């Protein structure tokens, strides 16, 4: 199992009236073939922008995106077309991301027609049937329109569209957050089945800790454009190191009345990373922040094999925080 996708010092800045918004700031991640990397964070942390950069829906300010060893950032035109179909995306809002004037059949056929992977009307039609079966959509829905279907089925259409071109890598941008819990579970199971059967690699972007824990092998926690902690999923929950990850974990309401947890309530609100000062971005809200945190930016370093954290205080505050 080698690395399928790797980002190196990826940056995306936007110019806004108040200054420069560091949406994604020096993000270096790697994803193993066949595994799932969960990316969690709150709104405005840059996780969706990161997904769009990898999809090349937006061009990075600097940095590299290595896919199977090739940097895809400078690729354009024909050279890019062959890579385009290797990376696909499942979008958050299954209501807005499907053209309302196309039927289910047309929607799923579109990537096939565009990519010319399947030629001929009959062949396309047959492949559409296969894809519908694969994602669990009944054949009779082929001539239905998205507005007649519920969120779960619409998301299945989105998944079928992404799978149509036989990608190796799928960016899942909050694919279940618009769905009800019972439907969410169906879609999560479907995604896991597809991964197992087709050897897919996922980057799973979400704000929901329990979903990310369930589906991921590795988890990266993002805060204001930066990755603050990255490690194996199990390790993150057993040995949370960054104070933001700790707060995030403790903030989630758990549907169990027998677990008494000490909540870490953060001070203040999320800001946006406009003209960030050269200090730890979490320092203002951090319960453990000292002068050091306001003076310099902590390095993103490996504190344990496979466990990366960006915090000056790692190790110093963990002991007094165990339940």
């Amino acid at each position, binding site marked *: 199992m080698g690395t399928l996708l790797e980002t190196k010092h990826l940056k995306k800045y936007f110019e806004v009236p108040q200054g420069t918004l560091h949406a994604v700031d020096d993000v270096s991640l790697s994803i193993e073939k066949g595994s799932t990397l969960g990316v969690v964070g709150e709104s405005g942390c840059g996780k969706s922008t990161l997904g769009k950069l990898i999809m090349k829906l937006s061009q990075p300010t600097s940095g590299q995106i290595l896919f199977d060893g090739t940097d895809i950032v400078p690729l354009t035109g024909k050279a890019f077309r062959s890579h385009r179909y290797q990376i696909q995306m499942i979008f958050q809002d299954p209501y807005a991301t499907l053209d309302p004037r196309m039927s289910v059949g047309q929607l799923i056929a579109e990537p096939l027609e565009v990519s010319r992977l399947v030629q001929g009307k009959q062949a396309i039609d047959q492949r559409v049937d296969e894809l519908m079966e694969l994602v669990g959509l009944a054949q009779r829905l082929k001539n239905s329109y998205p507005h007649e279907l*519920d969120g779960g089925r619409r998301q299945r259409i989105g998944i079928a569209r992404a799978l149509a071109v036989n990608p190796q890598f799928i960016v899942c941008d909050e694919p279940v957050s618009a769905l009800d819990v*019972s439907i969410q579970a169906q879609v999560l199971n479907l995604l*896991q089945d597809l991964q197992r059967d087709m050897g897919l690699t996922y980057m799973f972007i979400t704000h929901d800790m*329990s979903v990310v824990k369930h589906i991921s092998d590795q988890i990266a926690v993002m805060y204001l454009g930066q990755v603050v902690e990255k490690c194996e999923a199990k390790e993150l929950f057993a040995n949370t190191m960054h104070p933001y990850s700790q707060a*995030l974990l403790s903030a989630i*309401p*758990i549907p169990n009345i027998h*677990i008494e947890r000490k909540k870490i309530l953060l001070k203040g*609100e999320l800001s946006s990373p406009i003209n960030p000062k050269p200090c730890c971005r979490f320092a203002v809200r951090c319960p453990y922040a000292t002068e050091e945190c306001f003076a310099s930016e902590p390095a993103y370093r490996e504190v344990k094999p496979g466990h990366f954290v960006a915090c000056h205080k790692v190790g110093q505050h963990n002991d007094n925080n165990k339940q």
Partner: protein
Amino acid sequence: MAEHKDTPIVEVENLTVHYETDDGIVEAVNNVSFHIDKGEVLGLVGETGAGKTTIALSLMKLLPVPPSHVVSGTVRLDGQDVGVLNEHHMRRLRGSTVSMIFQDPMTALNPVKYVGDQIAEVILLHDKCSKKDAMLKACEMMKTVGITPERYKEYPHQFSGGMKQRIVIAIALACQPELLIADEPTTALDVTIQAQVLEMMKDLQRERGMAMLMITHDLGIVAEMCDKCAIIYAGEIVEYGTLEHIFDHPLHPYTVGLMESIPSLDKDVERLKPIPGLMIDPTNLPQHCSFCERCARKCARCEQDDPALVEVEPGHWVKCFCAGKEDA
């Protein structure tokens, strides 16, 4: 909290609400009965389209007519039948006896008025006091919800989502209501902000001994905030009981299904067990049990009759023929 049990703050009996639309009659709420005692927090849990918000709006008598239509049932707020009250009386009740906060704090505030004035306005409407007193009280309220009164003269757009929701809560609580209806109050907020807001709501509820109806789709929030819980499916209460009943031994297959659908943080589950099928079409409810199409435990009787909500143990009500029987 249930010691001083005189009249419950809310009593709903056999409430049925329909919406008349072009595509037929939507049976949004069907024969729902429940009550909330003073100082009690009831969680109302259900998925999209289950009828949660319709129930809340009918408590406030804020349902848009048409298309909605209360077919039958009574709603009593603090002993008064809401159905016979006129709009003038209702307006006096709203705010002082019962208040509501909505999911989206962005649209609930007037964008061209100072937030402080928006709080003071409610106080002026209900209490006979001078403008100055109202402003003082508004500052007081801002402090209560954790915002410095220095921000009195700021506009809603200068506040973040969590802060706006705090203002909305301040408005709702300004006149010391005995019941607060919170319709998905934190769904639009980030988790860390949600934790702050929930913590604050819980503190305020305890301090004031206020009753609360917490509408949510998140069982985690129910576990943290509520005393009792009602699970609704297709406009009906399918299970009702204390938190111990619902979380420790849920009996209705839908409740069990919901619990198993949520990826767990404290346990390792390889594979989720979702409820098969889709939410039932509320324009087309069957005569028999409306959950039986998705039910794993259904028997022949479930496809014939509609079960009643029965008390299987003290305080634990379930609407299922098979509840309480041993699993196969």
